[in-house]
């Protein structure tokens, strides 16, 4: 109702004298300008909550962390400026380098297979003839909805040191001696990598599946006419077309792998911060801060972690991006 009546008003105004018309125009221009101003105020007002919260609990802590990286502080006594010595302490600590090594090894073992299998699963799930598609999709995705703590606890039972734990029993059937999953160098890493793989492979599959479904069908039809088999289609059409999705998952996996904390912490339980076989960088940071009250070195570790994440993310994603380009060039 309302819009119609206002339109009527406008029409009526069209008939009145020229003087009144210009007056009206001026008025509406003024009104328009105030409208614009109102919009601007609303705009700032509506985005303000994010920026207020961000500056308080996001930006300020991040900057303060960088400041804290150059201070010596136990949380109680006043801070003292110590220059770069926190970084020196961390970078010369063998345990820090052990945690870097652990993080990278678990990161590679836990995420690289995920991406490979994710693409294969997505490709299979998209096959035209496949029945029970939805069932397979739901089951493969299901692990992702469990929390990291739940996954770590379930796997801590599956992979317990006891010779009767399910995994050790299965290994014994294959003639392998029981493995100390919670205290050996490779046992811990393998168990944690498997649980990371289990929880995330479905997630990546779903992303790749969305990517595959966005590939136009006529590309496959053309390839089929040229006599390409399913495997060749996967290598020459699906993979190159999936590149943006692969870059996305490589990026998120790289960042996620370097931030690994919950799985090893819960998996190892009591010994999480006292043993070094599966201590990750974030666990090292947490131990420095909340077990040893050495907040300066912990902040220095956080800064080093930030730098590492940036470097690894850039290297890994550009590696993948570059590889795709080369491959396409070869095909041409």
């Amino acid at each position, binding site marked *: 109702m309302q819009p119609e009546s206002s339109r009527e008003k406008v029409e009526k105004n069209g008939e009145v004298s020229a003087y009144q018309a210009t007056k009206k125009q001026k008025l509406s221009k003024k009104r328009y300008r105030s409208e614009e101003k109102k919009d601007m105020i609303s705009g700032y007002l509506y985005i303000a909550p*994010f920026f207020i919260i961000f500056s308080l609990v996001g930006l300020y802590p991040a900057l303060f962390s960088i400041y804290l990286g150059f201070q010596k502080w136990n949380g109680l006594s006043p801070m003292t400026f110590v220059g770069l010595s926190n970084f020196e302490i961390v970078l010369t600590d063998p345990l820090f380098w052990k945690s870097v090594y652990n993080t990278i090894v678990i990161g590679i073992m836990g995420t690289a297979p995920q991406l490979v299998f994710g693409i294969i699963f997505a490709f299979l799930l998209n096959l035209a003839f496949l029945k029970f598609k939805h069932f397979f999709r739901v089951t493969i995705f299901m692990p992702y909805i469990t929390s990291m703590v739940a996954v770590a606890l379930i796997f801590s039972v*599956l992979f317990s040191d*006891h010779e*009767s734990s399910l995994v050790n029993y299965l290994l014994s059937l294959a003639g392998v001696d029981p493995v100390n999953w919670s205290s050996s160098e490779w046992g811990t890493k393998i168990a944690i990598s498997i649980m990371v793989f289990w929880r995330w492979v479905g997630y990546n599959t*779903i992303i790749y599946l969305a990517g595959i479904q966005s590939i136009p069908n006529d590309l496959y039809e053309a390839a089929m006419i040229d006599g390409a088999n399913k495997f060749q289609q996967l290598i020459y059409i699906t993979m190159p077309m999936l590149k943006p999705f692969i870059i996305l998952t490589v990026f998120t996996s790289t960042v996620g792998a370097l931030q690994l904390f919950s799985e090893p912490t819960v998996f190892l339980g009591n010994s999480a911060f006292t043993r070094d076989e599966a201590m990750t960088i974030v666990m090292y940071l947490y131990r420095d801060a909340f077990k040893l009250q050495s907040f300066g070195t912990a902040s220095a570790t956080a800064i080093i*972690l930030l730098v590492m*994440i940036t470097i690894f993310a850039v290297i890994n994603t550009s590696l993948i991006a570059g590889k795709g380009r080369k491959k396409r060039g070869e095909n041409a």
Partner: protein
Amino acid sequence: MSPLEKRKSTPVSKILIYVLLSIVSLFSLFPFYWMFVMATNPSSAYNSIPPTVTPGRLLVDNFMKVIDKIDFFQAMWNSFVVCSIVTIVVLFISSLAGFAFAKFKFRGKNILFMAILLTMIIPPQLGLIPQYFLISKAGLLDTLPGVMILFFLNPLGIFLMRQYISESVPDELIEAAKLDGCSNFKIYRSIVLPIILPAFATLGIIVFSAAWGEFLWQFTVLRDPEQYTIQVALAQLSNTQNVDFGMILSGVFWATIPLLVIFLLFNRLFISSITEGSVK
């Protein structure tokens, strides 16, 4: 390849693919089943060789032990309260900001939007220590609001909402409402909100489940068992000398079941929330 050859090879490869996918499904489902087996058996079942692989009868007994050790229902309730409030707040903040970015003209809009996206690359561990002291200074240590406040930050939410609002709310509708003298907030409430409800479902799932499963921050802020969320409470189950696997997995089982039921009921929504959250 001749057509004949092709036809001959197809059924075999089809069967192979079904077998492979079934193995993958089994691999995905088995830990869930195993959790149920352990949650219903006495802890002695764990020491038997070969291991017990069938459900037992101690579904309730094991859970009683869980309740003895942690305040399970309180922890579930705490998690539920945290995640619900976080979800509502994030939906509100994101949709309001998304509305502004999609439909209003104001100076510095693009730069501000880029700034929001850039905040996503700050790793959450960078600010952990100052955040802890900030919360402690504010007297929010060991409280649920102390947990929540960090989760209110959700740049992805603003990004998704902007995308959705600019695609699905027509400019004409907003213009018309303005001619009627609607205030901007009234436009948000009575025009934008009803249109973006489906996007709320998607974003809501992303936010709720992320907050539900998050561990590092909750583990850092909450030390008082009364205030434990379910993740922190579950993590305590294995922190004993005499580990009782039946009890541990009973706790995990009962904490996972509600999630699992919700997931199975709304699985399409869950799965599409992942692709929308990350592919856009």
